[in-house]
């Protein structure tokens, strides 16, 4: 019976994924309006009729031209339509701009070399951005190895093949789900890739938008399925690759929390859901031009929910899924005694865990600086340095705090601490100073230790600390941006423009209305004079992430539970998952200390008995 339900579910999913191919257009439904979603920069002009497709699969035609160096050229002004034709100010402005453009065109025709140079400069600029985005994307892909090593090192010898293979298979599973529909859901309405850093293709201009409280709420993208049609563009492929490796980072986090008792088939079914639907929904709301990014221009909350490289979009999403799965699947056999005390199951390979941590830290140099999607945005140096600094205080803070609290400098906690610092800095990395990075990294080191104790008190068994590293510190990372952002970067983020006035006031206004002596600020947090506005935007994002992913995780877990079941039997768990689930031992031929691997459940902790 369960198998038939599963087959039915798979057919339904396949059918549903085909439907959007036919439906991604500008149909208006009652109460909903389609609009071009604002990208991360200035809001788009009023939506005209759907423009002709301008995708460039070869990357040789329209990708990287003089249009990408707007400071070197004069662009044709957008033609006025409808009511604008009656506005004398707008007509005057258009006429002046059109004359400037005509004069420029006449001059350009007399200087062909200058125009060729402009095209070459534009091409090289975009090329630098392509190379940067792709290479940093490759670094993030390498983090899959880091996660695999950390998780397997922190789990037991008898589950090594199973833990490693989950981390292996999540890569293709998540990727294909993202290719089929996840990317379309998340970025279908994002506009030009990287807000223009990767070319000017406009194919991703389909966002399902609902009007709520009189404001446009971007809900989900509806274009870009299977990367076909006008999505076949060099810049969009660059964006896809980069975003896909971020999605796979989320996807691999729950494998650590549910390790050592998760059926491999159940994990595979989860893998089908993560790239297709679980990750892209919240992702669209923050990075796809959806409603969380518009909290600034819609409701005056800072620059909207800002998340530079994904403390909430990537890490907290993964952490919440990890929390729900670890909670629902239950603790490992023997983990807790009857009085709630803990029987530790020590890591079987500390060197592997530390190596994995360093690989992750290295990959993070792709994760954070790469999120500029631009090698010509020289803030990348600040981003990279902030990332590094937070990893250091996170690592040291966790090690020292654990040493102080419980008497030994636990290596696994040093690993968790470095990763916690990296997770926390991921959101604010572009917006804080070195001091901010060091400070928030230190807090994350302390936070990860205390939260590991906390979840054990709740009897939620997390073999690798995934919930504490990614969930708790993903949330802290976003909230810390609301505190530590210092205003030196991010002017116009998410379309919101905030100005510091001469009288000291700090407020949001349209740039054309700003007084001459006002200074436009970047993203600004509480400690640097920004008030609570940005903090509340981050809080709304964090709360939304927790609620949304909890619901989605519970649904997915239950679907798997009623079809094939999530947890292995007690016999399999005690024997070790390698042979029963995978058919092969991780370390065939290596004799291991089998008896110490499975604790005995007692009334109270062994060391407290007599």
């Amino acid at each position, binding site marked *: 019976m369960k198998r038939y339900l599963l087959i039915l579910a798979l057919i339904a999913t396949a059918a549903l994924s085909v439907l959007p191919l036919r439906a991604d257009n500008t149909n208006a439904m009652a109460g909903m309006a389609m609009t071009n979603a604002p990208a991360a920069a200035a809001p788009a002009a009023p939506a005209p009729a759907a423009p002709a497709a301008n995708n460039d699969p070869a990357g040789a035609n329209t990708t990287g031209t003089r249009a990408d160096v707007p400071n070197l050229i004069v662009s044709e002004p957008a033609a006025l339509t409808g009511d604008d034709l009656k506005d004398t100010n707008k007509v005057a402005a258009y006429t002046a701009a059109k004359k400037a453009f005509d004069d420029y065109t006449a001059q350009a025709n007399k200087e062909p070399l200058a125009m060729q140079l402009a095209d070459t400069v534009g091409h090289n600029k975009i090329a630098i951005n392509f190379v940067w985005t792709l290479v940093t994307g490759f670094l993030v892909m390498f983090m899959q190895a880091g996660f695999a090593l950390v998780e397997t090192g922190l789990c037991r010898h008898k589950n090594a093949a199973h833990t490693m293979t989950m981390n292996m298979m999540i890569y293709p599973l998540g990727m294909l789900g993202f290719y089929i529909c996840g990317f379309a859901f998340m970025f279908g309405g994002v506009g030009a890739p990287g807000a223009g850093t990767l070319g000017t293709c406009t194919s991703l201009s389909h966002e399902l938008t609902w009007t709520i409280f009189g404001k446009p709420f971007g809900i989900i993208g509806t274009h870009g399925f299977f990367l076909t049609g006008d999505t076949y563009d060099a810049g969009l492929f660059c964006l896809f690759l980069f975003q896909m490796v971020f999605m796979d980072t989320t996807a691999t986090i729950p494998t650590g929390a549910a390790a050592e008792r998760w059926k491999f088939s159940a994990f595979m079914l989860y893998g089908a859901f993560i790239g297709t639907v679980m990750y892209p929904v919240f992702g669209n709301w923050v990075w796809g031009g959806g409603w969380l990014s518009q909290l600034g221009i819609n409701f005056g909350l800072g620059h909207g929910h800002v998340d530079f490289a994904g403390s909430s979009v990537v890490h907290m999403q993964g952490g919440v899924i990890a929390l729900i799965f670890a909670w629902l699947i239950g603790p490992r056999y023997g983990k807790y005694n009857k009085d709630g005390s803990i029987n*530790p199951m020590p890591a079987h390979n500390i060197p592997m865990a530390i190596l994995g941590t360093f690989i992750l830290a290295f990959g993070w140099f792709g994760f954070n600086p790469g999120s500029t999607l631009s090698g010509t945005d020289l803030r990348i140096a600040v981003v990279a340095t902030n990332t590094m600094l937070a990893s250091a205080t996170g690592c040291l803070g966790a090690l020292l705090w654990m040493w102080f609290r419980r008497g030994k400098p636990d290596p696994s906690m040093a690993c968790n601490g470095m990763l916690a610092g990296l997770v926390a800095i991921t959101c604010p990395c572009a917006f804080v100073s070195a001091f901010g990075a060091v400070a928030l990294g230190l807090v994350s080191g302390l936070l990860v230790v205390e939260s590991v104790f906390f979840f054990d008190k709740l009897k939620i068994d997390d073999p690798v600390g995934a919930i504490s590293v990614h969930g708790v510190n993903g949330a802290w990372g976003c909230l810390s941006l609301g505190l530590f952002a210092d205003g030196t970067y991010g002017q116009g983020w998410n379309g919101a423009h905030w100005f510091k006035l001469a009288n000291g006031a700090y407020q949001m206004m349209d740039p054309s209305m700003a007084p001459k002596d006002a200074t436009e600020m970047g993203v600004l947090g509480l400690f640097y004079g920004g008030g609570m506005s940005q903090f509340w935007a981050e809080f709304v994002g964090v709360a939304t992430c927790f609620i949304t992913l909890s619901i989605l995780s519970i649904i997915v877990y239950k679907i798997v539970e009623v079809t094939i079941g999530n947890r292995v039997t007690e016999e399999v768990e005690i024997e070790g998952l390698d042979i029963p689930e995978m058919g092969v031992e991780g370390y065939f031929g290596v004799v291991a200390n089998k008896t110490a691997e499975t604790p005995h459940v007692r009334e109270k902790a062994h060391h407290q008995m007599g």
Partner: protein
Amino acid sequence: MKKIEAIIKPFKLEEVKDALGEVGIEGMTVSEVKGFGRQKGHTEIYRGSEYTVDFLPKIKIELVVADNQVEAAIGAIVKSAKSGKIGDGKVFVSGVEQAVRIRTEEKGDSAV
């Protein structure tokens, strides 16, 4: 013939092997075992939680010797394996009914 089983601390193995060689015993079988006596285990801590390790790693040496070598063998083992600290181990002696050298099919004392 007698079988001598000695449970010793692992780091003493080389010393015991050398001492047995000095009294003319050249063959033995060694296995890695765990155990405890009155030494008891110790408490470790992982990720802030304590756990007890009752079983300590030891080495078991097994040798079969002719009756006239037993006292010399025991003396060599005890002298070289002793550290004076708790957990030094024990020596057991039991009788062996028969022994065969596989290569030559010799039996009895000439097989050990």
